[in-house]
């Protein structure tokens, strides 16, 4: 059989890899996607973990997905469907609770029980954040120019950015500076007085990062989570129908529709690199496949040091890749429930538990959870973000039964005894989560049928997320923009010719955005690497 030669091989079938494949295939390129696991989607995956119970095993809500990608790849045609969430619910240990709704009037009424002043200013806060989000969109929807570059293209991009900054006006410019550098709590303190309101708001600043709500720099991630945009409406979150894997499957179907080939259970052992240029991949079974370019959907460490190998890079680059920080901080507990849970502070299974539910009863609580993790233990009383998607998508569980997804922070990858000791602590970690929830949900333990506990170690082992970091590397300023992952190689290229990157470890970073895949593909096509 004559050896087939592809234009591009995508290593890793996460949502970014699939999107990259779809764009390249749409442009007429011959594309092959290779996925190590038996399922596609990477961290955006649905799996029937227990018979009859389908979970969004890792990533569980969709908010940042770029709408133009949905349009350009016609994802709706391929089954992309989002069920909007319109409540953020905060149960409190004292029997009180706060629900924030998509409907501003309902939110105002709820918030005013804690602070009339905060209720009044809440819409203004949303307005400013939306403005900032629109500004940041200009940054995330294009490759990041290198500040140190003197290339005309970069200079033009920098100038354009400078103009955009200036157009914000002085007040928003300074607000932007605050957002980029302040802690989530300090930033919220500028607006609000109620701890009960600020605590659940501040957590969006810490998702996936090894920082506390009082750590400088977390306000930015708060914005990252405020850019959620569904069907053009800002700050809308939702569940993918059939679980988060539905997003990936829509991308995969789009890619295949454009002619891409996708193989699962096809682990890549390494690259073929000759004279500093990649020319294909070597599979785990020894097979070799030729390609004009290879695009890695893996994180930077796996791409540079695993796939390619340190020997192909200048030692300085190896050092830079080595200093890129992961430090996963979160775990996931997926529960199959016999019936819908009811919170003692607000019984019933109504709309208030159909969105996301935050166990975040105060800023000190959240900060204490972080303090424990800082010194190498998982939080005994963690921040938990709970969703019960089967309440709005009954296809996920048998009739009357439910799936509950708990995103848990902090579970530091580097626990005191060393990351490889996570398996020994896995169940204790799961117990801490269940015990915490049981304080809010009477009889909770009795309705748990099955439990899946994923520590950062497990996320690394099963999904290839280095150190369990769900964003392929921390979203701290020195790892964003032209420095993601390494200055000089932030525009999806690597020092190895014909080796490209398209994952969350590239600009603009993690979350189900699709931008890495999209921008990588567009850069590749523009670069004429495949012309």
């Amino acid at each position, binding site marked *: 059989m004559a050896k087939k030669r592809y234009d591009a091989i995508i290593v890793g079938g996460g949502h970014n890899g699939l999107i990259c494949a779809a764009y390249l295939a749409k442009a007429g390129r011959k594309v092959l996607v290779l996925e190590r696991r038996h399922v596609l989607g990477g961290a955006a995956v649905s799996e029937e973990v227990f018979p009859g119970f389908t979970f969004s095993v890792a990533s569980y809500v969709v908010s940042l997905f770029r709408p133009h990608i949905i349009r350009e790849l016609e994802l709706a045609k391929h089954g992309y469907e989002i069920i909007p969430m319109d409540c953020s619910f905060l149960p409190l240990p004292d029997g009180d609770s706060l629900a924030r709704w998509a409907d501003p009037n309902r939110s105002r009424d709820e918030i005013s029980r804690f602070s009339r002043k905060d209720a009044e200013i809440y819409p203004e806060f949303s307005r400013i954040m939306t403005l900032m989000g629109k500004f940041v969109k200009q940054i995330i929807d294009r490759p990041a120019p290198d500040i*140190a570059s003197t290339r005309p293209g970069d200079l033009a991009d920098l100038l354009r950015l400078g103009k955009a900054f200036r157009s914000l006006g*002085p007040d928003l410019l300074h607000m932007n*500076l605050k957002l980029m550098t302040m802690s989530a709590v300090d930033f919220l303190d500028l607006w609000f007085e109620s701890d009960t309101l600020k605590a659940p708001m501040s957590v969006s600043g810490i998702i996936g990062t090894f920082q506390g709500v009082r750590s400088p*720099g977390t306000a930015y991630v708060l914005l990252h989570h405020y850019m959620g945009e569904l069907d053009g409406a800002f700050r809308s979150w939702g569940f993918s129908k059939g679980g988060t894997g539905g997003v990936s499957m829509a991308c995969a179907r789009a890619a295949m529709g454009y002619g891409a080939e996708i193989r699962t259970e096809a682990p890549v052992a390494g690259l073929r690199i000759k004279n500093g240029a990649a020319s294909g991949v070597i599979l785990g079974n020894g097979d070799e496949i030729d390609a004009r370019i290879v695009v890695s959907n893996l994180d930077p460490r796996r791409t540079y040091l695993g796939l390619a190998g340190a020997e192909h890079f200048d030692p300085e680059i190896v050092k830079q890749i080595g200093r890129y920080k992961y430090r996963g901080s979160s775990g996931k507990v997926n529960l199959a429930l016999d019936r819908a849970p009811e919170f003692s502070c607000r019984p019933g299974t109504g709309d208030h538990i159909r969105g996301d539910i935050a166990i975040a009863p105060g800023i000190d609580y959240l900060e204490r959870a972080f*303090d424990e993790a800082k010194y190498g233990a998982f939080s005994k009383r963690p921040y938990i973000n709970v969703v019960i998607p089967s309440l709005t998508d009954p296809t996920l569980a048998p009739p009357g039964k439910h799936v509950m997804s708990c995103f848990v922070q902090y579970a530091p990858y580097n626990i005191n005894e060393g990351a490889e000791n996570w398996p020994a602590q896995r169940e204790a970690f799961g117990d801490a989560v269940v015990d915490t929830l049981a304080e809010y949900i009477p009889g909770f333990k009795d309705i748990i049928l099955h439990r899946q506990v994923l520590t950062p170690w497990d996320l690394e082992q099963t999904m290839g997320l280095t150190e369990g970091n769900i964003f392929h590397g921390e979203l701290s300023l020195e790892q964003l923009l032209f420095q993601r992952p390494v200055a000089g190689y932030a525009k999806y290229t690597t020092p190895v010719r014909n080796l490209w990157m398209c994952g969350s470890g590239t600009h603009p970073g993690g979350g189900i955005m699709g931008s890495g895949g999209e921008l990588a593909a567009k850069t590749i096509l523009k670069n004429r690497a495949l012309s």
Partner: protein
Amino acid sequence: MTTHDVIIIGGGHNGLTAATLLATEGKKVLLLERRDFVGGVAAQEEFHKGYRTAGLLHDTSTVRAGIIEQLKLRTHGLVVSEHRSPVTLLSDDGRAVTISDDPVTSAQNIASISQKDADAYRDYRKFIDSVRPLIRNLVSSQPPDIRKLGFSDLKKLLGAGVGLRRLGKDLMHELLKVLPMSVADFLNERFETDFIKAGICFPGVFSSYNGPWSSYTTLNLLIWEATANVHMEGGPAALIHALRKGAEEAGVEMRTGAGVDRILLDESGRAVGVKATGGESFRSRIVASAIPPKATFLNLLSSEQIGPALEAEIIRFRDRGTVASLRLALNRPIRWKCEPEQPIRFARTGNSFDQMEQAFDAVKYRRFSDRPVLDIHVPTVATPGLAPEGHEVVTILSHFAPYAPDGGWTDPLRNKLRDTIVAALSDQTVDLESSIVASELLTPAVLEERYGLTGGQLFHGEHAIDQLIGRPVPACATYSTPTPGLYLCGSGSYPGGGITGAPGMLAAEVIAREIL
């Protein structure tokens, strides 16, 4: 009633600097100081009969060269050398290492602990040297006005950009990489010995609401490293002595025991003078405040006078004090466990990033640290006259302590804090307790009351990026304020706190232009 050109509120080192610079240009300047002596946080104080400090703050290494020259401080008796003072980094296990201005001897000292760290220290200082001109220039020049972003502001930003580009691509990338980092990440990449790392990082978290694991602390460390390059015999008190003489010679009229009650505005809203707490009013063309921004706007002006927008911004200016000061009078020289060859003047404890971070954790919950980290000054080493012969004064800036602990600063709590700090120092010394003649503890709340430091914040406001750029608030970022005739010239303005004189000098330049 006589009219002055300028009234300066507050006789700290920045107030004195601004006053003297303006007087030197022939302006008629009146300086009003609430306390009975000038100097603010740099003033000498007798805290027990016969025992005096060299200032609440210890560090004079970042006083700008331009000030020493322009104010002719040497001719006023100040002994200055262009080498920062050696500082000894102490470990709880009795090890110690002294680092000084000279990278070679510092590295030699470090080599006795770790050869890797000795090499790393030389590289570290080389890195500092390479970015020093850029950073020093930035924090000694007029800040851009981010509200206007006019031609000259853009030029300034561009100038900074050009300076950055002049570093070359690799160095520029490296600087931009490390600036947002935590000092722990920054130094962990370079060094291996815990207590050396902790000691080196101290200026990055000094007087901040940050621990070593907090992002952006490297920025503060680099600013200090790039500007700390002088040593003054006699410390802050000697600086104040020279500044006062300079002010007198320049013809500044100084009144002490003269607090200000109100800033007076005319019908058009222009500042035209001040009313002192004694009831007396003084007129001037310009009023410049060297006291913290919150005190200036919230205490000396009314809500109506400053308007709701500015008031809201000023209220949001973060000034959380996190440092307590302890002064100790000892009846004999302090004896260090590390048995140094030379008497120690400056020392820092810290032990490890985790221990420092834990010390910081406490203030988040409105408690003070059980194991505080100490910035220690032994002024009697250089100036024996501060204590009776053979006796010693030790002053400590202890991190971290909250401004408002739950339940307030009660006597038992104050005593407990004093004992905690003494215990931490005892870990480094021999028979400390038996040598203590007297002590004075200043909690952040006392710092506010005594020095007028709002929130107990030593820098008049925290050094966070958003409070360094557009300091204290965008509307007042270039020393002028929305109130015509009212200026700021203290540590609450660019480039911030510490004993630098830079805000006083830069404000004086702006004010001099205004009244030409």
